[in-house]
């Protein structure tokens, strides 16, 4: 049995199609990522899977239960961390956690093992009101509250948005530990680099899935040889390559430009020669493996 099964699910808001005919499955213990920018449909999809919204058409099952007919059963067994902080701001850290435990008919003590590693970091602030916590602390408390009834599956809607790179790493470290304890996790993010931390991902854009697979397989399907190019003046190099007749795509990536050529089997030497003819200095051209962001942009173009 799949933990989550989504089949041709669609959701409209008036004339906006937020989720457009999406299908996928998530297996036991998987860490599954929904990767895409704002407006991709990630939140709407999560709200349907957590039984807060009904689909217009198609169906979905969570833990074998239908999201429309069996919604009450689903709610007992899933944990949900919404994108917007939605704990009680006027309750303390401890009170929030206790509240969520009580609602689900359990106690903090009963499932303490599951949240221990995370809650330890919050413990010094347990008397503080949730509204007075820093962003990172709020995020940790929300995760604890989503876990306190020991759910079988966890839905995390953009837990790392607006979070700095170091704190993001720490958060993914926590997810890895939860995964080791057998919890199935669906997590959404606009940060493409987080795709590589998932077992499988769905790349999403404007309500549709562009690709669903392991990050490695998505990368291996990138069609063209990809080159990273740099020179002393990246801006003028970019302008020159934009005007180059053999250029297929060119995108800045940090201090390199990622370049694909219209010609098949073009070599680094040929590209190097052309750039030298532009009187650029300190040129490097190397053949590289694409990352998920390269793939995402290529898929955006195809669609």
């Amino acid at each position, binding site marked *: 049995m799949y933990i989550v099964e989504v089949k041709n699910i669609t959701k409209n808001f008036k004339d906006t199609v937020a989720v457009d005919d999406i299908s996928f499955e998530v297996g036991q213990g998987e860490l599954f990522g929904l990767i895409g920018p*704002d407006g991709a449909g990630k939140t709407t999809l999560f709200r349907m899977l957590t039984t807060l919204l009904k689909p217009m058409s198609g169906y979905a099952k969570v833990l074998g239960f239908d999201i429309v007919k069996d919604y009450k059963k689903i709610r007992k067994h899933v944990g949900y961390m919404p994108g917007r902080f939605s704990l009680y701001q006027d309750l303390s850290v401890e009170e929030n956690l206790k509240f969520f435990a009580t609602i689900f008919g359990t106690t903090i003590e009963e499932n303490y093992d599951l949240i221990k590693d995370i809650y330890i970091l919050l413990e010094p602030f347990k008397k503080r009101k949730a509204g007075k916590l820093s962003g990172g602390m709020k995020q940790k408390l929300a995760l604890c509250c989503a876990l306190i009834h020991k759910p079988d599956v966890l839905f995390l809607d953009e837990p790392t948005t607006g979070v700095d790179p170091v704190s993001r790493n720490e958060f993914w470290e926590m997810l890895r530990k939860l995964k080791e304890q057998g919890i199935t996790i669906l997590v959404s993010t*606009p940060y493409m680099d987080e795709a590589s931390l998932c077992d499988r991902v769905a790349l999403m854009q404007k309500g549709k899935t562009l690709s669903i697979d392991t990050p490695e397989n998505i990368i291996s399907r990138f069609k063209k040889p990809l080159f990273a190019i740099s020179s002393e003046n990246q801006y003028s190099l970019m302008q020159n390559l934009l005007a180059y007749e053999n250029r297929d795509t060119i995108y800045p990536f940090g201090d390199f430009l990622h370049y694909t050529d219209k010609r098949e089997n073009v070599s680094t030497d040929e590209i190097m020669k052309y750039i030298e003819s532009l009187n650029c200095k300190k040129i490097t051209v190397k053949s590289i493996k694409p990352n998920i962001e390269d793939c995402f942009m290529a898929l955006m173009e195809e669609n």
Partner: protein
Amino acid sequence: MEDNKIIYAENLTKKFGNFTAVNSISFSVNKGEIFGFLGANGAGKTTAIRMLCGLSTPTSGKATVAGFDVFKQTENIKKNIGYMSQKFSLYEDLTVKENIVFYGGIYGLSNKEIKEKTDYLVDILKIGDARNKLIKSLPLGWKQKLAFSVSILHNPKIVFLDEPTGGVDPVTRRQFWNMIYDAASKGVTVFVTTHYMDEAEYCNRVSIMADGVIAAMDTPSKLKESYNVKTMHDVFVKIAR
């Protein structure tokens, strides 16, 4: 103050009760520069930006923005800067045109200038059909590009961008940076925060805040060299950890 320093801060400090959010930071930003203002969550970036925009009075130290004092001349500062963030930019219940007219009016542009600017923006952003649409009906990428254009409508000397590309798709993110380069080439100084470390590489200079102080400040290539790492992401991890 030297002429080419558009922002100049010396020992700028902000305390909230016993908590020092910004602890004696000193730095300057040159005219026309793209300056990346990085740091971990809670490092003091937002507090520092609020002081520089004239929205929060510093506890001590001194600073000038566009030549105006952050203690005494906050109204002059507000007229000479632009500001945009991911959270607040345009009014969702006004149309594209109404937003431009509103912001143009606030910044004292004449009706003729507002009309010219509206036509110009609709043209370069290729949003002709959307002129009379409500902002809330537009895709995020369009909104952010429009918000940036509106933030520099009054030709400010400096524009503050607070996480302008958060959640934006990768292609639009790059188009947005093209607009930043374009503005900088016209002499606008750009002060930008971001959590995308590839974007840190696009800045002329970068500062990284940690626990209320500026822990590092230099060009991206010199920072990578001095921390002996290959990417700005690695520099950030070394400093913020």
